[in-house]
């Protein structure tokens, strides 16, 4: 909600009535304290109901019942309690790609921490332009604008940092086994439940901006995925056998992200590495990494402070930063 007088009014009324959920608020007193007509209150209530707020409306009173599980800016901002991340919110119903919008905004001088969210993406991208499936109202799609002062070579580790913030947030909402598949996928029970796409804009040795894009499968049903994805994709709803709150998950993630980002700027993953390892689906596994026509194989023994995967073969350890990982079954 933004701009128009009516929407501002709706925001004000909302903040008044939601202070005491379930308790009726007198329309008369509201109109008196806000210096508005009862008719305006009614109009504002219509706006709120259209947005999905459950409000009981009697002749003399209105009662806040529940907020919608929608990614609208008012709901994201409500008790978010972050300092930088999500300080400014641009919430869309449906966009081609939140990353593209965020990148444009970043280029236009948008400050660090601004987020772009969407209920659905029509051209959500995975790596190298692969399409990420995102039907309306079931997922969380968010892109975060970062403008760090570190050099471009430290930017890749942000993917791992984000994966940690996301995995820990998702753990709050499921009893399923949440894992990080290095470097940018989150699995529940071995199936992909979320993906991260980080994009960097740098000039010479300076980061202009980084866009961290996240797509989470929250309330997808199995049949929401195309047939070829049903065996490899999952959602919190499929794992839990009931719906999860998208808005609360998003807010949890944003809070975690802010904390991890602060740590990362001080010493990359130095203090978070152990938690990353605990979530890692690849630790101890024999893997094969393909990039181009090259293959590297070995056992995953560590993830270092830059986020690189440490592979051991014949007693020699080497860091790996690229490649398509596959687990080799012994």
């Amino acid at each position, binding site marked *: 909600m933004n701009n128009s007088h009516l929407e501002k009014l709706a925001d004000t009324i909302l903040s008044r009535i939601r202070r005491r959920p379930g308790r009726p608020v007198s329309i008369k007193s509201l109109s008196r304290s806000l210096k508005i007509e009862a008719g305006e209150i009614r109009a504002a209530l219509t706006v709120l109901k259209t947005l999905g707020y459950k409000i009981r409306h009697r002749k003399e009173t209105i009662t806040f019942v529940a907020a919608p599980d929608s990614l609208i800016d008012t709901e994201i901002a409500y008790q978010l309690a972050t300092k930088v991340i999500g300080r400014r919110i641009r919430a869309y119903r449906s966009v081609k790609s939140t990353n593209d919008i965020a990148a444009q905004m970043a280029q236009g001088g948008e400050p660090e921490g601004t987020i772009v969210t969407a209920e659905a993406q029509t051209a959500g991208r995975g790596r*190298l332009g692969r399409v990420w499936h995102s039907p309306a109202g079931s997922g969380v799609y968010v892109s975060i604008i970062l403008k760090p002062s570190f050099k471009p070579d430290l930017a*890749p580790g942000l*993917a791992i940092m984000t994966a940690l913030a996301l995995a820990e947030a998702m753990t709050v909402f499921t009893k399923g086994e949440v894992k990080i598949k290095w470097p940018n996928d989150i699995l529940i029970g071995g199936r992909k439940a979320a993906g991260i*796409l*980080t994009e*960097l*804009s740098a000039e010479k040795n300076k980061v202009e901006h980084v866009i961290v894009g996240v797509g989470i499968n929250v309330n997808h049903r199995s049949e929401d995925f195309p047939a070829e994805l049903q065996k490899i994709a999952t959602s919190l709803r499929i794992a839990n056998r009931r719906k999860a709150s998208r808005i609360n998950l998003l807010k949890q993630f944003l809070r975690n992200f802010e904390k991890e980002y602060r740590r990362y700027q001080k010493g990359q993953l130095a203090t978070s590495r152990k938690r990353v390892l605990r979530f890692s689906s690849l630790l101890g596994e024999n893997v094969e990494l393909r990039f*181009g026509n*090259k293959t590297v194989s070995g056992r995953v023994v560590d993830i270092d402070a830059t986020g690189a995967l440490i592979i051991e073969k014949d007693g020699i350890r080497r860091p790996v*930063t690229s490649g398509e990982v596959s687990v080799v079954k012994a």
Partner: protein
Amino acid sequence: MNEKYIKKLIRLVEESDIESLEVSSWGRKVRITQRLSASSNGSGDSPAVLQPIVTATSTTTSEPAPPAVVPPTPAEAPPVEDTGRQVAVKSPMVGTFYAAPSPEANPYVSLNEKITVGQVVCIVEAMKLMNEIESEVSGRVAKILVENAQPVEFGQELFLIDPAG
């Protein structure tokens, strides 16, 4: 061939790992040799010491000898070809080079293509972070130095752009 010049030659030899250098100029010849006396894989009791030995001889011929060329030190090795006017696009990080935005798409740029400043010429990826690399100059793509999906190092040259085009 004055003292200053000879001292300069000695320094050149000292700084390099060549064993001897002979320079003749206008009928005078100087040879500087050094013993690369110790090796680091030896017993380890003495560090490598370079001892330049200077032997100067005067030749009696009146015929002026052509000035010799002082071999350059490895650090000053000239480029294989004339790239003086070309500008390199370098990788800002360790990662994998991608010539196109997706496997099915056309490359961002091709050889001899005219490009403008700020144009995206490739992606360098690490940990799935896509870094779109832009050219800092306008010009012609004179050379593509890496192949698609090839690992690249920090600072590695990816393209040579000829600003004169």
